[in-house]
């Protein structure tokens, strides 16, 4: 019988370690395919090493392996502390941890073997889709069960974001994955044509919204005030931003389908809702920046807080760039170019990875009850992450704008001036720079991994008792 007076932190430690392993593997795959775009023959003629297969391994590895493991770890850690109870159904939490990572591992192998549904960010075939649904339900039971057991009446804002992540991703995943299986490794979507496209990008964009944005905002709202040792600058703003964010994000998907065979009003609606999204996104950024600005003394002792500060800067860039790219007259040039890839990475490297790194630098020493092995290495990691992200974004801006211009250029006869092959061949300088940028970013992640291995060496997760806390609200209620 587990002790009801201590937190369940071992599962958090394991999820953090697995997340780190996926970070190295997923980013490693990314750097390799970046190299393939410069030196196409390094796939050695092997199908499983080809760009098409490794690219899906890269995206699934970093989003679902690195990202979701980190989200599960931080959700389990913070929901216990904001509710003052241990995890509900801790064995189910272990099931989530192991089954999820097994699903991503086997799913990754299936992608290398050529199984794919052909839906971006949802490539895994139907057996994995069913498995993911089961694990996700278990995640929901553990998370909401813990909240139901809470001893603090208010549900802290980070839990609203994690809760939205769990509910919305379940809805998106189930609807978008509906398919008719033909064999064990092949199925066909239940939706056809333009409807399939709309459902796919309703899924795709809201996976970005509720997983890569909302989920990680949950992380920000718990760990930033903890780091800074002061409450969030405006709690009211965080709640308003949450509802505005949740309401407007769900409509934005059609901006992925501008000038396609879907109704024009659907495209325009997607564009308008995307532009509206800027308001709640930047409200959150302001809230974060003002929270840190009042706690600047902490930056001296805490390398982790630096990552969070930078994450907020790149969050500001990505959430501004996204609405801008959704404007139809910008999108007509930027779509189908590497500008989109750059935009995704300013979010993925600059926001998701940085906020996770910052959180892990805070979390790992606390989990094992030891000081970080090397603050110096963490500081070097900070520089590598900053340089890698900046160079990545610049290279893709260069590549993207050149491509947009060259795809559409007309000669004096009104014919397209350049062929696809010529344009792609001319991208080598940008792709080489992107490869260097990715390698720099990856080397930082490897340093962090080594730093954590040394920090955790010969240590186990510290058992922490749940503090006896009488909140102001419950004190008032007791008197009443």
């Amino acid at each position: 019988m587990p002790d009801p007076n201590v937190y369940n932190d071992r599962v958090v430690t394991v999820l953090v370690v697995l997340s780190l392993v996926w970070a190295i593997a997923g980013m490693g795959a990314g750097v390799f395919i970046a190299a393939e775009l410069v030196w196409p023959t390094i796939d050695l003629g092997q199908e499983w090493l080809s760009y098409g297969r490794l690219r899906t391994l890269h995206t699934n590895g970093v989003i679902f392996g690195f990202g979701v493991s980190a989200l599960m770890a931080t959700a389990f850690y913070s929901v216990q502390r904001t509710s003052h109870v241990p995890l509900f159904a801790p064995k189910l939490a272990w099931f989530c941890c192991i089954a999820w990572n097994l699903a991503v591992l086997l799913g990754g192998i299936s992608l290398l073997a050529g199984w794919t549904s052909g839906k971006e960010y949802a490539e895994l075939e139907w057996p994995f889709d069913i498995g993911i649904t089961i694990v996700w339900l278990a995640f929901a039971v553990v998370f909401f069960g813990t909240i139901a057991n809470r001893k603090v009446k208010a549900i802290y804002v980070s839990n609203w974001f994690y809760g939205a992540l769990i509910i919305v991703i379940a809805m998106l995943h189930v609807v978008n994955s509906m398919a008719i299986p033909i064999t064990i490794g092949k199925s066909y979507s239940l939706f056809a044509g333009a409807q399939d496209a709309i459902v796919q990008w309703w899924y795709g964009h809201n996976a970005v919204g509720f997983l890569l944005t909302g989920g990680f905002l949950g992380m920000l709202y718990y760990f930033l005030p903890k780091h800074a040792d002061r409450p969030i600058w405006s709690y009211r703003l965080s709640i308003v931003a949450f509802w505005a964010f949740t309401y407007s994000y769900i409509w934005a998907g059609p901006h992925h389908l501008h000038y396609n065979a879907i109704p024009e009003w659907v495209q325009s609606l997607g564009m308008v809702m995307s532009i509206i999204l800027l308001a709640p996104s930047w409200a959150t950024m302001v809230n974060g920046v003002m929270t840190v600005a009042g706690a600047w003394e902490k930056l001296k002792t805490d390398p982790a807080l630096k990552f969070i500060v930078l994450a907020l800067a790149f969050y500001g860039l990505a959430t501004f760039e996204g609405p801008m790219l959704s404007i139809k007259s910008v999108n007509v040039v930027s779509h189908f170019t590497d500008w989109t890839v750059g935009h995704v990475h300013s979010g993925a490297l600059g926001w998701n990875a940085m906020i996770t790194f910052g959180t892990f630098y805070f979390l790992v020493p606390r989990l094992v009850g030891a000081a970080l092995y090397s603050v110096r290495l963490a500081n070097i990691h900070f520089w590598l992450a900053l340089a890698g992200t900046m160079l990545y974004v610049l290279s893709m801006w260069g590549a993207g704008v050149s491509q947009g211009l060259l795809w559409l250029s007309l000669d004096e006869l009104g014919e397209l001036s350049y062929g696809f092959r010529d344009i792609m061949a001319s991208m080598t300088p940008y792709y080489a720079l992107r490869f260097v940028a990715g390698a720099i970013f990856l080397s930082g992640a490897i340093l962090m991994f080594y730093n954590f291995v040394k920090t955790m060496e010969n240590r186990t997760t510290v058992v922490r008792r749940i503090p006896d806390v009488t909140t102001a609200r419950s004190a008032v209620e007791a008197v009443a």
Partner: protein
Amino acid sequence: MTFVPIDVLVQGGQLFARLEQATASASVVVFKDILPLALIPPIFLYLGSLQFGWQIGAEDVIRLNQATLLMISVCYFLALLLGFIGLAILLRWMAPTYAATLEMSRHLTLVATVATPMVVGSIAHLYPHVFVNMLAIIPVLIWSMFLLYRGLPIVLRTTPQQGMLMASSLIGIVLVAAVTLLGITVVLWTHGFGPSLGL
């Protein structure tokens, strides 16, 4: 009299100590440091384009006539000059938030410091091939970032912690400004200004 660009290149470890002591007025910094820095890249661009022509993307080498080239170089110079001074104004606007100095000359000195590696890197304009210029960006950008984070608290007289926040805010603003410029450019293209596109 000290020259910021030269100090950045030769002073090494003593650089920030020297900048900390700097006493020149804002107008002096503009004429002595900012103007030469804004002048160098356009000159390299002019000479390189005249000699070799630009190679961008899949297009053949672009050779512009001398008058057009001169006009582009002058515009480049003005853009850099306004950009540098604009950045200094932006820094000064942020200064009270991060308890930094309000002296404009120091904000201009910081901009000159951070811009110096970029201006040195612009020597790649002498051979205006995208690949060469991309290669030059890597060390130059890292060097500039280093100078920004290390130099900001010293030159602007704030704590290293608040300096770190201010530098990160600046990066955020510059990135948003850069992507806005790209966006505006593209909207102008799609509305018929600039290159003829098949839209």
